[in-house]
């Protein structure tokens, strides 16, 4: 299996490696010390790099990140509480404003109602005053008219009596007219 060139090379410097190199270079025991020596150095180097530099650094990064995340979550929680508070305050302000506006509306309504009632009362009074006045005037006019009718009737009666050649007796005429009118 082994390449003759290498077997030859091995034979040249190793002296008698040809036999065990017949299959696997892995079983070339003469190379073991070399491999083991360098392996131990490599593992030592990796261990030093990891334990001194890499692992503490990565652990610090991860812890840092965890801290940042925790802080951020706490801050978010706080902000959320603040937002809730603000919302509650806003709702309260809104409710207050609603109540205030309802109060103002009611007040305005009562004031307007009072004004209105006043105005209505005043108007009613005025109307009734005017009506009474008009009534009085109508009464006066009516009285005036009745008086005039009586006067005219007496005059007419007197004139008629005179025209018929009677002696005008004012008192008799007046009494007769008054009696007629009353009848």
């Amino acid at each position, binding site marked *: 299996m082994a390449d003759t060139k290498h077997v030859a*090379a091995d034979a040249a410097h190793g002296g008698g490696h040809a036999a065990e190199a017949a299959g*696997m270079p*892995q079983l*070339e025991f003469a190379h073991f010390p070399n491999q*083991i020596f*360098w*392996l131990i150095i490599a593992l030592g*180097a990796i261990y030093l790099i990891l334990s001194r*530099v890499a692992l503490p650094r990565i652990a610090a990064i*991860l812890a840092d990140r965890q801290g940042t995340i925790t802080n951020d979550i706490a801050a978010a929680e706080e902000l959320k509480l603040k937002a809730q508070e603000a919302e509650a305050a806003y709702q309260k302000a809104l409710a207050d404003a609603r109540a205030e506006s309802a109060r103002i509306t009611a007040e305005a309504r009562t004031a307007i109602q009072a004004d209105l009632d006043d105005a209505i009362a005043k108007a009613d009074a005025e109307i009734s005053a005017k009506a009474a006045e008009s009534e009085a005037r109508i009464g006066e006019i009516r009285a005036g008219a009745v008086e005039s009718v009586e006067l005219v009737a007496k005059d007419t009666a007197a004139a008629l009596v005179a025209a018929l050649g009677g002696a005008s007796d004012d008192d008799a005429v007046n009494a007769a007219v008054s009696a007629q009118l009353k009848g």
Partner: protein
Amino acid sequence: MATEAPAEGGLVFHPMDQFIVKPLFGDGAVHWYTPTNVTLWLALTVAAIAALLVLGTRDSKIVPGKTQSIAELAYGFVYKMVEDVAGKDGVRYFPYIMTLFMFIVFANFLGLLPMSFTTTSHIAVTAVLALAVFVTVTVLGFVKNGVGFLGLFWVSSAPLALRPVLALIEVISYFVRPVSHSIRLAGNMMAGHAVIKVFAGFAAIAAISPISVLAITAMYGLEVLVSFIQAYVFTILTCVYLKDALHPHH
């Protein structure tokens, strides 16, 4: 299957060549200190991990960028795994397990690059990892629980007559752990890469090369999955063993 080119008429199979350990400079012998391709790819693995986890998190942003996200994802993934499987007191060992996971996952993925060398396909590498886990966990078990750690092998919920038999089985399975732990990873990585190489060899024949290319693509997709899953399996088994060491009672 691998033979010389002339004998197979153009078909050249060297599926295992990719695993050969070679010196980086020159052609000399491979001593324990020689910089080899193993060294190169291990160094690239370290560099890639550093790039992701150190350079990627350089800005330390609260809202992460792409690279930082991936780094954090890897961290969270392994951390959660350790916490879930090994328990709260297992978290102390998180850096070690993170080291294991990052190394295996990056070595596996870097091994998928064409022309690369897969360090985790070598039993020498995975055996060191598995033995390190095994020895650590065993020592930890005795340090934390004293002789009580042996309670791990004494299944107190089983009928008394069965317990010695179960204890024997438990002991055997305990010692087989590092073997299966290491061979699973190396075997998976090696087999997939070798199969891709074999398909690649077939691509030299014009008539079947489209199938070969398709097969390579499919295998590559599978290997991407396997690379991650094997790293995950290795790590989660480590966590399970760690849990056994911390809480040996069933």
